[in-house]
């Protein structure tokens, strides 16, 4: 399990390659990368991401441990950025590795679902006219319940 919370950009290709090479006995790797989307209407200048140093790392480690307990993973990686980002910038990535692809796919989705609403990050969209905190979505909270049912 590799958890990184950082302001600096990351090199998605290099990270995916290094992650792949570090796996022992894996037959499948799934990666996901989230990008800053531009806004419809007023163009987005900056997406600011605030976080809770200390708790963020713990919350992400807990989510990765929960995934580890649930699926047979040979490894997992979470990188999440904070600070000012621009449209098209990479915000975060997850990678999961397992013997078979089903575990890797499911674990990657699980990591994404939980880090959306259980890791202490807050996004704010800054346009020429406005600064607005991004509201959480009910569907993101609902997405967590599907993991209860299958427990």
């Amino acid at each position, binding site marked *: 399990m590799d958890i990184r919370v950082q302001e600096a950009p990351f090199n998605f290709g290099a990270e995916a390659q290094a992650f792949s090479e570090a796996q022992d006995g894996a037959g499948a790797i799934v990666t996901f990368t*989230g990008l800053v989307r531009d806004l419809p209407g007023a163009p987005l200048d900056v997406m600011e991401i*605030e976080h*809770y140093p*200390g*708790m963020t790392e*713990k*919350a992400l480690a807990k989510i990765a441990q929960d995934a580890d307990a649930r699926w047979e993973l040979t490894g997992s990686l979470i990188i*999440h950025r904070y600070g000012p980002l621009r449209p098209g910038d990479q*915000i*975060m990535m997850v990678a999961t590795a397992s013997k078979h692809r089903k575990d890797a796919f499911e674990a990657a989705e699980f990591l*994404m679902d939980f*880090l*959306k*609403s*259980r*890791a*202490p*990050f*807050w*996004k*704010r969209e800054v346009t020429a006219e406005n600064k607005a*905190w*991004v*509201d*959480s979505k009910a569907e993101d*909270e609902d997405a967590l319940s599907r993991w209860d049912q299958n427990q």
Partner: protein
Amino acid sequence: MTLEVLYFAWLRERVGEPRERIETNAETAADLVKELIAKDERYALAFADTSSLRVAIDQELTDFDAPLAGAREVAFFPPMTGG
């Protein structure tokens, strides 16, 4: 007890500071919120609707009725928007 109290995102903006040290005998996070609201109007504005807020005690997400006994750090914030 002395607590380190932290605020994030729009809650931080409404309270007007990111963190403060508070001397309190509050038994739960909800009691602490009541004390803050009684102290100053900016807290009353910030904490008008706690159903839209989250609380973490010593960096663990919990409920507003969770006990504060032994706690060192309490954080209040809106629902998280990671990913």
